[in-house]
């Protein structure tokens, strides 16, 4: 398989999605995720950390059928039909287990055996992960206990930020480009964007994009220290993007994988094409280490750049999957950014934040929501904002449906924003 198979020199390739895989709080396969999104079914469960009822985090988006809360991989459990060899497990973080299950599912969805991406120089791997704070904590504690005399040899590769790309590159025998993205909550979208560029530039024929996040005290509670998490214990009240009473995000976890291919390469192998990634854009806030620009400056620019890259007018967008984490500052900034991009006198896109159902899985969110958009375009509906009761007045003029709409979106925009004011948007087109 050669990269750029159907492109003449200088022409930009088209990028299509041919497979997705879901390990998420709202389902571990396409059908389950589709049902949850359509029915407005959240994926929240009660959590307790340190056995301490005083910890101010009561619920989170939890993943079913996995047990990965130990720092020792020998304790982990995952669905038996996913084969993960010991030589892979020994270097993984918990979210690496999710990631392998998501990739295997995405490859199968794309009609590709594992062998099709192994030792194939035109296949790349693009990963989004913040590493594993839990594994890092465990390994460093062990090192502290021996006063630096010894530590687990797999401590580095199972915990630092590149853990997904290190492990998955070896596991899947990836010989094209391999890279990782660490722009916090925009990481997953960055991974997709740069994978698209490498395909469009003819450097690759195919990319496996995967993003993962885990849920444990070490990952989540530092956000409580920032006062960024909802303190609600009622799942219907905790994550309510764009509601006037929103009080923070709900942490969550999982992994999502997407198989991106050059359109010509996908056509040549007779692949089922799920959607086209028509363009993407990014722009920064230049404002704060953790807070969104109050007017949504960077996010608005990122949306405009994505639209321009895709050659799509704002009034052609049918649906926006908002970043909408349910934080007071972030949602306000996004609402203002949306209003600066979409002329309220013209056709408005439907807007919803699926984080109302999933919570916010940080590095995973951009890839997860892009995959949700792919699903929605194929299933023919737009998810609502089921936890939205009293719309924040700042959202006036935006179309925020409460319930699912049986409308098939043809052109979709997905927003993501990360710490440091890193904003990334994608435009997807139905095929």
């Amino acid at each position, binding site marked *: 398989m050669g990269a750029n198979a159907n492109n003449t020199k200088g022409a930009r390739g088209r990028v299509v999605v041919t497979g997705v895989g879901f390990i998420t709080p709202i389902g571990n396969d396409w059908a389950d995720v589709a049902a949850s999104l359509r029915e407005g079914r959240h994926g929240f469960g009660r959590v307790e950390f340190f056995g301490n009822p005083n910890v101010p985090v009561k619920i989170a988006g939890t993943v079913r059928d996995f047990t990965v809360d130990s720092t020792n991989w020998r304790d982990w459990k995952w669905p038996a039909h996913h084969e993960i060899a010991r*030589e892979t497990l*020994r270097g993984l973080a918990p979210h690496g287990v999710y990631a392998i299950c998501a990739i295997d599912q995405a490859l199968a969805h794309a009609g590709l055996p594992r062998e099709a991406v192994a030792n194939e120089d035109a296949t790349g791997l693009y990963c989004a992960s913040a590493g594993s704070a839990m594994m890092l904590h465990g390994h460093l504690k062990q090192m502290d206990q021996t006063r630096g005399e*010894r530590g687990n040899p797999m401590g580095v590769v199972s915990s630092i930020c590149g853990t997904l790309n290190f492990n998955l590159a070896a596991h899947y025998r990836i010989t094209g480009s391999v890279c990782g993205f660490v722009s916090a909550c925009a990481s997953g979208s960055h991974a997709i964007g740069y994978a698209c560029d490498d395909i469009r530039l003819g450097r690759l024929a195919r990319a496996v994009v995967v993003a993962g996040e885990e849920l444990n005290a070490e990952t989540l509670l530092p956000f409580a220290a920032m006062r960024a998490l909802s303190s609600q214990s009622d799942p219907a009240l905790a994550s309510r993007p764009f509601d006037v009473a929103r009080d923070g995000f709900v942490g969550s976890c999982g992994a999502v994988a997407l198989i991106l291919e050059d359109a010509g390469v996908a056509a040549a192998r007779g692949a089922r094409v799920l959607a086209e990634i028509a363009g993407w854009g990014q722009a920064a806030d230049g404002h704060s280490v953790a807070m969104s620009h109050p007017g949504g400056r960077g996010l608005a620019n990122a949306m405009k750049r994505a639209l321009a890259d895709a050659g799509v007018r704002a009034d052609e967008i049918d649906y926006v999957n908002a970043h909408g984490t349910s934080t007071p500052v972030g949602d306000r900034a996004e609402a203002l950014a949306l209003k600066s991009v979409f002329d309220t006198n013209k056709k408005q896109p439907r807007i919803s934040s699926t984080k109302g159902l999933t919570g916010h899985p940080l590095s995973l969110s951009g890839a997860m929501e892009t995959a949700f958009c792919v699903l929605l375009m194929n299933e023919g509906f737009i998810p609502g904002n089921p936890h939205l009761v009293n719309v924040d007045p700042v959202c006036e003029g935006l179309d925020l449906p409460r319930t699912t709409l049986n409308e098939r979106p043809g052109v979709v925009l997905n927003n993501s924003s990360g710490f440091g004011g890193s904003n990334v948007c994608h435009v997807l087109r139905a095929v």
Partner: protein
Amino acid sequence: MPSQSFDTNPSEKLARYKPEVREAYARFCATGDVEAVQIVILAMVREHLPKPSDAPITDGQRLIEDLGYDSLAVAEVVFAIEDTFGLRIETSEIMQISTVGSLKAFIARKLGPQGV
């Protein structure tokens, strides 16, 4: 009695191992029985095989060439041995170990004179 400070409760460090391995560890801790150490080392070698196998492991087998160990797996099993027996094994010493037998002999030497 061994002079080092061992964890004599085998249900802790060797919780994932078979009862006979935990019993061997407890026996070594109680009596300094070097033969018991061999049982534990062999079980650890098996536990850290990159590709799990129930095939017999013999002293003459080389960790890398015959048992499929890579350098990370060697580091892992050495770490497990260090942690279990409270030893410190230098990288230069690891480089001298090639077979299962040489590993067992090396650990016995490390533990032997000081440990009994």
